[in-house]
C-alpha cells in the first residue's frame, strides 16, 4: 500500500494530511488518494465540535433554546432569537424536504470535477432548521422538485469529518 502525504488548500483552510480510499483501479493494487475538497477549519473545543462529533456517530444534532424554544442551526453560544445562553442539544429525525437546489455543471475547485454534475440543496428539516448539503439518489437531478421529501444519510470523508447528505425518498415510500 502506498500513501501519499499531501498538501493544503488556501488561507483559512485546514492542512489535510489524510488519505482517502478510492477503490482498486488496477489489478493487484489499491490506489490511495487524498480528500482534497474543503474541510472545516480547526473546530477544536468550540461549540461546533459537538455537531461534527455527532455526525461521526451518524447523528445530526442541533440546538434548541431552553428559554424561547427556537431551533438553532448552525451551533451558537447564544440564541439568535432571545440571546439566552441556555441551549440544549437535540437530535434531528433526519426527515426533511427540499427548500431549493441547484445542479452544478462546472468545477471551479478541480477537486469537484469528478463529481460533475452534482446537486447542492438547501434542506428544511422537520425540526425547523435549514441545512445545506448534497442531494443524492437520483439519475436526473433536474427533475427534483422543491418540496420533495429527502432523508439524511452520513458520508464519512475523513477520519475527522463526516458530512450529512440527503437522499431522495422514493415516492412509493413517502406515505
Amino acid at each position: 500500500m502506498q500513501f501519499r502525504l499531501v498538501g493544503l488548500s488556501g488561507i483559512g483552510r485546514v492542512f489535510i494530511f489524510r488519505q482517502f480510499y478510492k477503490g482498486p483501479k488496477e489489478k493487484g493494487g489499491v490506489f490511495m488518494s487524498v480528500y482534497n475538497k474543503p474541510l472545516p477549519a480547526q473546530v477544536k473545543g468550540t461549540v461546533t465540535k459537538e455537531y461534527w462529533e455527532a455526525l461521526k456517530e451518524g447523528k445530526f444534532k442541533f440546538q434548541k433554546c431552553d428559554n424561547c424554544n427556537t431551533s438553532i442551526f448552525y451551533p451558537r453560544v447564544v440564541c439568535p432569537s432571545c440571546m439566552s445562553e441556555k441551549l440544549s442539544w437535540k437530535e434531528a429525525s433526519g426527515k426533511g424536504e427540499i427548500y431549493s437546489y441547484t445542479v452544478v455543471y462546472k468545477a471551479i475547485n478541480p477537486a469537484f470535477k469528478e463529481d460533475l454534475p452534482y446537486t447542492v440543496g438547501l434542506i428544511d428539516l422537520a425540526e425547523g432548521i435549514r441545512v445545506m448539503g448534497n442531494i443524492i439518489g437520483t439519475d436526473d437531478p433536474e427533475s427534483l422538485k422543491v418540496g420533495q421529501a429527502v432523508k439524511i444519510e452520513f458520508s464519512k470523508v475523513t477520519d475527522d469529518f463526516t458530512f450529512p447528505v440527503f437522499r431522495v425518498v422514493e415516492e412509493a415510500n413517502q406515505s
Partner: protein
Amino acid sequence: MSIKGKAAIVGVAETDSWYTPELSPMDMMAITAKRALDEAGIDKSEVDGLFSASAYYYMSTLSLGEYLGIVPRYTDSTTIGGSSFVSHLLHAAAAISAGLCNVALICYGSSQRSDAGKLVSMSEQNPFEDPFGSLYPISSYALATRRHMAQYGTTSEQLAEVAVAARKWAMKNPKAWKREPLTVQDVLNSPLISSPLRKLDCCLVTDGGGAVVLTSAERARTLKQKPVYLNGAGESHFHRGISMMPDLTETAAKVSGESAFKMAGVDRSDIDLLMLYDAFTINVILFLEDLGFCAKGEGGPFVSEGRIAPGGQLAVNTNGGGLSNSHPGMLGIFLIVEAVRQLRGEAGERQLSKCDVALVHGNGGTLSSQVTAILSKEPS
C-alpha cells in the same frame, strides 16, 4: 435630523477601458480619483473623508490615503461586498452632515479580468456550505432562482429577458464590454453553470475602477458640475451565507428601499431610472419586487416584453449593467457613476429624455447586504 439633501455628488469618473492589465487596482483608484476631483474642481488637499472597499487591500482606505498622499479626518473601509460604495454614499453624507468631513472621496479598483478571471476574495470559510461544492457566489443565486421559480412560476425565458434588456442598453453605450446583439434564445442556449442559471445569466468579468466625490449641498452649489443630491438612503442585511437567508425570494432590499423612500419622500412613480445591481439576472427581478416596483412574485412577467429595455416603461441599468457593460468584482460604484451621468444629461445615445430622480441599489455577498440610494437633481 435627516441627511436628506445635505450632501451632493460633484464629481465622478471611471477607467477608460474594462481591460487594463497595465494598471493595478490601486492605480485605477488613483487615476479615477484624480479625474473625479478634476471634474469637481476640488483640489486633493481638500479631501478629508476617504472611503473604499476592496478584495485586494485589507485596509483599503489606508492604502489609498498612502498612495494619494491624503490625510483624512474621516476614514471608512466598510466592506460589505459589491454594495459597499452605495453604503459609502450614505456614510459619507452622514459624516458631512455631522461636520466630520467636508469632501468625501469614494474609490474602487479591480483587475479581476487581468487576474485571469479568478474571483479574488478575502472571504472567510463557511464550514456549513463550502464542503458541498456550492460555487461561490453563483450557486447561492441559483438556489434563490430555483425557489422563486417554484414559488411564483418564474421562467428561464423571463430571466433571459433581463439579460437581453441589459444588452440592448449596452448597444447604446460605446464603452460597454459586450455590444453584439443578444436574443432570449441565445441566453437559453448558453450552458448551464449552476442550474437554473446559465452562463449568460451571469455578470461579466472585467477590470475597472471608479471614483465619486461628495460634498455638502452648500459647497456643491458653488462648483462647476450640476450637483446630484443624495435625498434618501438605507441599508440592511438578513444574512451572510445563503443557507441562513430566511426566505430566498425576499431580500433585505425591502428594508433598505423602505428607508430610502421614506427619507427621500418620493414615490416609486417619481423614479426615472433604476440602477440595480445585476450580478445575475435573478437580481433584477428580486430587487424590482423588494423595492416595490411590482408585487412579490410578479418580477418575471414585469421584466418581459421589453419593459426594462430601451423604449420600455421603466429604464433599468442604462449603461448595460454588470451583465453587459462591466463587472470588475464589485459593481456598486459604477451604478452611481451612470446614475449621475443620466441625471446630469451626459449619457449620450442612451440619455433618458427625462431623468430627474434615480434609484441606485447595491447588493453584496449572496443577496446579503442591500443598500438603496435615491439621487436627484433637486435637494428635496
